[in-house]
């Protein structure tokens, strides 16, 4: 199969009407003239059809999951079911202002409440917040929660260090630094956490160890229970980066593995579209110790009805405007509801089977640096290609159109 994207010679939109919009802004009753935009706004004046043609052409110069395979592991590029798009566009979902009276948004709160409970079960943690706008945003919020927790225990002055494996996604150290921690990256052994290195690094200064499991090399960290024991033994918190949860749905979960707090990405595991780099939707899940620190407000069920609870004195407060990305929560809820228990397990099983199958096939031609059993993704080395004058980059770029 060969695929060629369109290559339109499409100019930037302003070149379609270079003289557009050059007049000064109208005056507005009651607004002093010194506020008025004197230079006008330079932007094209186009007909609807001209605009549609322009952006249709741009779309044809783009590569999406419905165009062809998008073999990215960590970001779990999966089919985004159309029913989610349809439901999110219902007037009863889209035409809701976040400041509407609570009596008029009971359905929205019910979806949020149901999805939170479902994700609590999926993660094995006690409470869930859907406020984060993305995975990194969830990491950051979780680290602020950990900070607040140690502050309340009077340990913040000494627990200043966040540990992570050198394979960690870049957002992990960046989030830790933004939350005011110093970071220390630990060398991996055979693609996984080296327990000895971890034990040597843990101390009374450790606030948290951040881990993705399966990790970014696609390997399950089989020492996870010992890792959890060691981190907790040193008085630190264990953070789960949920980027790769897709691979272990229903097999194990962060709570069972000993994690205290986790973030998930609804745009990965729960199939909300990536949108060319966003919007994503982050989920925060916490055990009983850290749950009081979750952002406000928290959804609460009272009889048949729902309300927002702001009475959370330990909460870190707000991490964004509004209650969360409801339009995406709805898509994720539809995905989970259709799949159910068996479907979500099937998702993990198939992802892991496909990945191992492809890895085994390609492994006949290319070197595989780590152990053969992988989860949702795997690493190949281009070392053997080099002998023939081919770079890894050449292979990586080959599936894309020439």
């Amino acid at each position, binding site marked *: 199969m060969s695929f060629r994207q369109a290559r339109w010679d499409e100019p930037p939109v302003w070149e379609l009407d270079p003289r557009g919009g050059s007049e000064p802004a109208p005056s507005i009753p009651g607004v002093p003239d010194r506020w008025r935009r004197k230079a006008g706004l*330079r932007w094209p004046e186009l007909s609807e059809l001209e*605009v549609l043609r322009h952006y249709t052409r741009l779309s044809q*110069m783009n590569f999406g999951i419905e165009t062809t395979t998008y073999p990215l592991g960590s970001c779990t590029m999966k089919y985004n079911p159309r029913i989610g798009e349809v439901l999110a566009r219902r007037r009863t979902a889209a035409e809701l202002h976040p400041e509407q009276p609570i009596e008029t948004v009971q359905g929205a709160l019910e979806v949020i409440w149901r999805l939170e409970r479902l994700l609590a079960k999926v993660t094995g943690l006690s409470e869930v917040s859907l406020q984060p706008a993305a995975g990194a*945003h969830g990491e950051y919020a979780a680290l*602020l929660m950990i900070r607040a927790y140690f502050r309340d225990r009077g340990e913040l002055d000494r627990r200043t260090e966040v540990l992570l494996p050198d394979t960690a996604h870049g957002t992990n150290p960046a989030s830790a630094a933004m939350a005011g921690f110093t970071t220390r990256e630990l060398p991996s052994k055979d693609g996984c956490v080296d327990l000895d290195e971890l034990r040597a690094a843990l101390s009374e200064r450790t606030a948290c160890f951040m881990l993705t499991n399966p990790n970014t090399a696609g390997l399950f960290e089989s020492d996870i229970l010992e890792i959890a024991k060691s981190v907790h033994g040193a008085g630190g918190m264990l953070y789960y980066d949920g980027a790769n949860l897709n691979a272990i749905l229903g097999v*194990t979960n962060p709570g069972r593995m000993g994690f205290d707090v986790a973030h998930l990405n609804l745009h990965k595991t729960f199939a909300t579209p990536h949108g060319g780099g966003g919007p994503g939707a982050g989920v925060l899940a916490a055990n009983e110790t850290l749950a009081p620190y979750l952002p406000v407000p928290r959804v609460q069920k009272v009889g048949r009805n729902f309300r927002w609870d702001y009475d959370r004195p330990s909460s*870190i407060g707000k991490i964004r405007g509004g209650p969360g990305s409801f339009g995406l929560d709805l898509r994720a809820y539809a995905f989970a509801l259709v799949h159910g228990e068996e479907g979500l397990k099937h998702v993990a099983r198939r992802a892991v089977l496909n990945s191992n199958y492809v890895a085994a096939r390609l492994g006949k031609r290319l070197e595989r640096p780590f152990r053969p059993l992988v989860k949702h993704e795997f690493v190949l080395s281009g070392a053997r290609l080099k002998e023939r004058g081919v770079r890894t980059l050449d292979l990586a770029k080959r599936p894309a159109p020439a």
Partner: protein
Amino acid sequence: MVRWIPDTEKEEAEMLASLGLANADELFADVPRKARVGRMGIGASHTEAEAARAIDKILERNRPYSKFANFLGGRVATRYLPAAVDSILQRSEFYTSYTPYQPEASQGMLQALFEFQSLWVELTGMDVANASLYDGATASGEAMLLCRRQQDGRRFLVPTSLPWEERSVLENYATGPGLTVAGIPTDPKSGGIDLDWVRREVVRGDVFGVLADVPNGFGHLDGGLLDLRAAIGSLPLVVRADPLALSVLEPPGSYGADIVVGDGQSFGIPPSYGGPMVGLFACRKEFVRHSPGRIVGATHDHEGRRAYTLTLQTREQHIRRSRATSNICTNQSLIALAFVLYATLVGPRGLAELQRSLAERARSIAGALAPIDGLQAPRFDSPYLAEFTVELSRGTAAEFLDRMRRRGILAGHSLADPRPTSPRGPERILLAATESTDDRAIQKLATAARTIVPALGGGA
């Protein structure tokens, strides 16, 4: 069987056999027994039809704002969206695509994002915009951190009128680096910032930046903002601006802003109960190397044709890790596309005309409410565009809004911080004109207010 996964049981067996595995469980042999779970307990699967019915039934418990006389505003707008916006957003080449790290497969999205950035630059009078942040509140937080990289100090000044949520978000961004967010007192007459106070604080020292918003948290235009640059000398200045307002107002770059942030939801997507949103971020070029988020640049490919790619990536987390300018990775690309689509479909003249007409309607609302005792409309004497603040002198905002709702009116929202630990302030409500605000809606609001306000707080 859910048809979202190919139904290939036979192939599954063959694939397992080729891997030398007896069954699918062996794929998870690396997960220790003690870490396994039996059931998640999330219930059985459903057909798509069953799920759609179940979710629709829940959604029926919502009452969309379009069923009311609607005066809700603030940072989220209930605007009419031309049908063409969504028809482009639904093109799966856009909405199902990944982050454009591979420019050869992402020219369409990259060009659209470059256009989005250029539009925000044009609206703000800045030099460079990024490809979006989460929302206006987080963009303000990132702007504050950028100020700190440009200027030493511990204190960041913001108007006391800033919505409580945004203040809370800023305080969270301040926590890590140990910064303090300080409120600039509000002038009781105009609702604007007290410039003398700002001048004194700047002289006192330790201030690394100032943020002000247009319109401000009361919906008004604060003349103090136009004189703020002179008051703070060379300190970094962040302006948080509404994009529609900037279609008719001077760009903040012309009165000394270094960074301009905003919420872009009003251009192109429905409120969806608060998300997804899009955060707008632009700055002067001297700031760009310390700025957060992805930036798309225009360049040429190996054949000399115009091409687009992510640029200045060494600022970002995937390269700079703990020393990155921000942790942001996933942003709001698709909503950024909606933003540029909306603005281009409406056009510069259409945007200015929309803002003018909303401002006229807002004046009509204020005019209709002004004669009512017990309610000051508007509360402040400064100019305003599409929204303004009213203050009740009896009863509570909650009681007022609840009685309005019972009459089919969403009469704006309370500006109070709902957290029980927060001190009680004046009973203030932000009211906005929308495109659905016609004379009938205004009369309905005024008639209801004439009945409701005198009865508030157990009054007659």
